[in-house]
């Protein structure tokens, strides 16, 4: 089987002074290449922690994690940064664009960190066109609507042709119409380019579009549901 994500007994404990928060308590699952996965669960169940861990934004406290064939546990900060840059595209609930850069600048930056010296601007421009923002490339994030900011974030996520796109409640701050557009955009990345899609969501309708739904509860895997969505 061609797995992009193999997570074994992942745990994550946050220590804040005397208090320990066990956000993940040993979660194991695999994700197939090209799959659409939804992660669901009550607030505080560890969904974002899960995403940050498999997105290499944060290291697990223990457990084994193999991303696209590479074991992540022993990697240093530089290597992790490289993995994030090359293999993963992120879309966050609150968009998370760099506030001092234009849309084009935000989309271009991953290419710079990937070490590209030529054609960055053109590729960033194309990515913005692909998400329907050709006429907003020189706007700063605060000059854009929420939906437009999220489109920029999607363009940023796809510009490096990552194997995996991770989205943490990508429609959580958008109204249902714009949310649907963003979802369609993400699903088309899966259909047209075969990107693996991992979406954290509270929305049952969105989860229905996934092939499998991973349900978390109190930092543990509750159960995995086979869905009907996605391109089989």
């Amino acid at each position, binding site marked *: 089987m061609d797995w992009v994500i193999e997570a074994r007994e992942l745990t994550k404990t946050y220590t804040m002074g005397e208090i320990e928060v066990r956000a993940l308590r040993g979660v194991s699952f695999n994700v197939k290449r090209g799959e659409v996965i939804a992660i669901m669960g009550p607030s505080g169940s560890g969904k974002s922690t899960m995403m940050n861990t498999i*997105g290499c*934004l944060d290291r697990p406290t223990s457990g084994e994690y193999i991303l696209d064939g590479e074991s992540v546990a022993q990697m240093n*900060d*530089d290597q*992790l*940064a*490289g993995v*994030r*840059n*090359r293999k*993963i595209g*992120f879309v*966050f609930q*609150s*968009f*998370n*664009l*760099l*506030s*001092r850069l234009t849309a084009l600048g*935000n989309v271009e*930056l*991953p290419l710079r*960190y*990937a070490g590209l010296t030529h054609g960055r601007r053109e590729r960033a421009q194309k990515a913005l066109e692909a998400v329907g923002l050709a006429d907003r490339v020189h706007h700063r994030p*605060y000059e854009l609507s929420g939906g437009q900011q999220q489109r920029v974030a999607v363009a*940023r*996520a796809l510009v490096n042709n990552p194997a995996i796109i991770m989205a943490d409640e990508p429609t959580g701050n958008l109204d249902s119409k714009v949310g649907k557009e963003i979802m369609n955009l993400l699903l088309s990345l899966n259909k047209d380019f075969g990107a693996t899609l991992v979406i954290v969501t509270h929305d049952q309708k969105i989860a229905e579009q996934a092939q499998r739904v991973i349900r978390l509860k109190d930092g543990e895997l509750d159960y995995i549901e086979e869905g009907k969505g996605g391109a089989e």
Partner: protein
Amino acid sequence: MAVTAQQEKAPPSQAEALYQAQLRKERLFRTHVGASWGVLFLILIFLFSGQEIKLGPIQYQTIQLDSEFILKKLGFIAQGLGQTLLISALSIAVAMTLALLAALGRLSTFPPIYAVSTFYVSLIRGTPLYLQIFFFFLALPQLGINLSGVVAGVTALGLNYGAYMSETFRAGLSSVGKGQREAAMALGMTPGQTMKRIVLPQALRFAIPPMGNDFISMTKDSALVSATGFVHELMWRAVKVGRAQFNNLEALIMAAMFYWMLTLILTYFQGKLEARLARGDR
């Protein structure tokens, strides 16, 4: 289109009228405040005019100053302005560096670094500045370190302000949203790059206005280094000429005027800077 043409000819809207009224009110307020400042200043001058006031049976003598002395020594004291500004500027530079390091230290998860940073802030904030300044003149020579007056003064002031300003930096660092860090990490920046390229620049910008205030306070606190007798800034000069000619009050009042003037000028520029940052923001 016809609608807009009509609107252009129409009398100013109610909103516009309200706005104009508001502007007039603000202007009037400022004029009145300005005039009142003038009156208060005149009263202050009168208090030092040496006049005698008679109100029926009550006689009152205002403070008498030796104007000849003032005119003669004005230049001598004014020469301290440069030293005062120099010490303040150097000290604030030292303070900013230390404050940044201390604030970053507070973020460290490595216990010794966290400890050094909190120990430093606690010790400095827990003792008087006046005492700290003496400490540098008295204690360091015993260790064989002989600093010049200016260097020792700058070290003491810098250390002291650094401890206080580390809080400003800490606030600045925490003002940079988690989203900005996540964005930077998501692009493929390392934690170090994220701190240096994304978080620090935004935090510094946030910290500039309070640092301006600290600089203004510093110009006045720099007077304390005069106590050691080695730095010939405003205060030292005032005390020296005052003592020599038994005109302490005149000398101190002159120094006070210089400090006040300096503060007014710096506050003016501080306001400009703040307005400019506010405009460029967002």
